[in-house]
């Protein structure tokens, strides 16, 4: 059903037409039979009047006092001689004369006629009156037609009024639809409809109930995320500090290396899970603002510099002009951080990482290239899946990871209406990650 309004309109019009048609048919039939009866009475009366008025038994041809082409009479003697007739009547016997008086239908002169035969016993003669049948029908049809025309003309008007009435009746439903469709992703406030009709009460209350529950769940999940973050990060910090103390006391530092790696990995996985959770498109409550991408990239690289310096890698950032995007600062920081950390992680020592920000028409391109081994093309789609690592945990680079980094990156690009693609870096030979953001041009010359 495409539209309730159209459906109701068509159904109602069909019903109205059907009912009208049936009642018109009924009316037509009863009009015809009533007309029959009236015309028959007239024929009969006419015969009786003629019988009374004309007492002659001598043949006489009248000049015809009936001028109508549709009605005539004949008077026949018992010996079948024509005593009298109207001017337009034939000279032959129009109908069989038997003993009975009565009505009959006969064909004559291409028309069908209704005849009435009156037996005049006293004067030994027959009086026949006749009338064309089609005339009767025409009259009856005219009567019926006169009542049909206004109804047929009224149907379009009825359709228009029905259309308006249905529209008015469906207004609360339309209202509800508009409210729901205009809801922002993060707006979980209940919908409100003035004078909710009975039929919608349940729908509105169920929808509101659902929204309330969703909101509660949302708040609870956010609370959980914050609590979990705190409850997990503090013990990991504690583990790290204790390990540091242990390393300071212990001469054989290499024996603690696996422990350090384990703690780092646990910390990373927790961070990534929390971050993935925070940045899933259905969870995120973003506060978009106009941000300068280069500044964010500079800050993130500066914060991650220890990591890069440890592997003696070279990093550079180049940009042509100030580049503004609409985005969430924290999400964009996470995005760039994940790309930089990934690049550094999978690029060997003394390798090179290059970050480029450029303007391309209406878009901004953020590219992160490295001189690492890159990612074979058959994995380009799969690496964005959660917990997917190429070759599982036996990754060639022998580095720690949980396979969430690029999944988070993908989520963040989705939230910013940005496109991400992987390729081989032409200049450095490793992986090239390209992200195209829609540019916020408003006052970009500032």
């Amino acid at each position, binding site marked *: 059903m495409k539209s309730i309004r159209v459906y109701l309109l068509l159904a109602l019009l069909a019903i109205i037409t059907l009912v009208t048609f049936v009642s018109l048919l009924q009316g037509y039939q009863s009009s015809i039979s009533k007309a029959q009866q009236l015309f028959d009475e007239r024929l009969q009366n006419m015969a009786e009047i003629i019988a009374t008025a004309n007492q002659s038994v001598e043949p006489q041809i009248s000049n015809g006092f009936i001028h109508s082409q549709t009605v005539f009479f004949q008077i026949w003697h018992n010996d079948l001689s024509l005593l009298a007739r109207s001017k337009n009547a034939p000279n032959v016997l129009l109908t069989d004369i038997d003993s009975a008086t009565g009505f009959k239908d006969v064909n004559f002169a291409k028309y069908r006629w209704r005849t009435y035969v009156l037996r005049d016993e006293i004067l030994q003669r027959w009086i026949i009156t006749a009338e064309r049948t089609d005339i009767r029908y025409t009259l009856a049809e005219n009567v019926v037609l006169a009542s049909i025309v206004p109804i047929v003309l009224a149907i379009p008007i009825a359709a228009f009024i029905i259309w308006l009435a249905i529209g008015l009746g469906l207004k609360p439903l339309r209202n509800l639809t508009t409210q729901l469709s205009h809801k922002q992703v993060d707006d979980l406030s209940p919908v409100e409809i003035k004078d909710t009709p009975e039929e919608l009460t349940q729908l509105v209350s169920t929808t509101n109930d659902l929204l309330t529950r969703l909101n509660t769940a949302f708040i609870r999940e956010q609370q959980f995320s914050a609590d979990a973050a705190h409850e997990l990060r503090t013990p990991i910090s504690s583990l790290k500090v204790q390990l540091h103390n242990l390393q300071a006391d212990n001469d054989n530092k290499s024996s603690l290396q696996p422990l350090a790696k384990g703690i780092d990995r646990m910390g990373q996985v927790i961070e990534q899970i929390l971050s993935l959770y925070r940045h899933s498109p259905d969870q995120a409550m973003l506060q978009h603002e106009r941000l300068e991408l280069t500044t964010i990239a*500079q800050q993130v690289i500066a914060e991650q510099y220890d990591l890069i310096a440890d592997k003696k890698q070279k990093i550079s950032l180049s940009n042509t002009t100030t580049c503004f995007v609409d985005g969430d600062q924290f999400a964009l920081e996470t995005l760039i951080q994940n790309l930089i950390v990934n690049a550094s992680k999978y690029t060997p020592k003394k390798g090179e990482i290059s970050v480029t920000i450029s303007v391309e028409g209406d878009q901004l391109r953020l590219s992160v290239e490295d001189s690492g081994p890159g990612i074979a093309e058959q994995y380009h789609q799969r690496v964005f899946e959660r917990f997917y690592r190429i070759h599982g945990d036996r990754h060639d680079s022998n580095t720690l990871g949980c396979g969430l980094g690029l999944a988070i990156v993908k989520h963040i690009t989705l939230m910013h209406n940005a496109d991400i693609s992987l390729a081989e870096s032409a200049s450095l030979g490793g992986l090239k990650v390209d992200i195209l953001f829609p540019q916020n041009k408003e006052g970009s010359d500032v």
Partner: protein
Amino acid sequence: MQVLLIEDDTALAEALTRSLKHEGFTVNPLASGNQAITSVKIELPDIVILDLGLPDIDGTEVLKEIRKHSADLPVLVLTARTSLDDKVKGLDLGADDYLAKPFEVDELMARLRVFERRSSTLKHAGLSIGEVTIDSASHQVIVSGEQIEFSRREFMLLKALMENSGRVQTRDSLESKLYSWGEEVASNTIEVHIHHLRKKLPSNFIKTLRGIGYIVKPI
């Protein structure tokens, strides 16, 4: 250096106390915000390490109270929250630095040393890295035993880099340290100053990260 450590997690507080003592700090660990406020009022420590998630009062309240009492006491905020709002709020309320859990102990120590250097340039005016020594009181720079003249801006730039040695300083952050808000700064101003600085300093003393910023590595 007297460090006031405000952290409610006993395991972390104990471990941190040991690490800090090992690095030569004197540590006073406290587990509640109210105790911390009282303690600051009685005796000012040299550095405060403050965890924002405290059982009795919010860490940001403690920070406000500390700031009422002393405007220039260096406060390093530790937090398990990472959202940007908290970060901005913490810095707005007057935290000098911010470290998200879980952190590397080396990173914490590096930041504490920045505080230390800053307070030593304030109090004793001298700060040395390798062959370079600066004296904020007399605005003098001694390179390899020789006194060299620097312009005011060049001196401030060098000071900012040396105080934060080991940490990358972005062009933006250096600009904000050198120029007051609203002052016109040409896009290559910092590059020009660095270029002049380099001529007077040992080679590779200031390392450039192309497009990002500059770093002076601690020796």
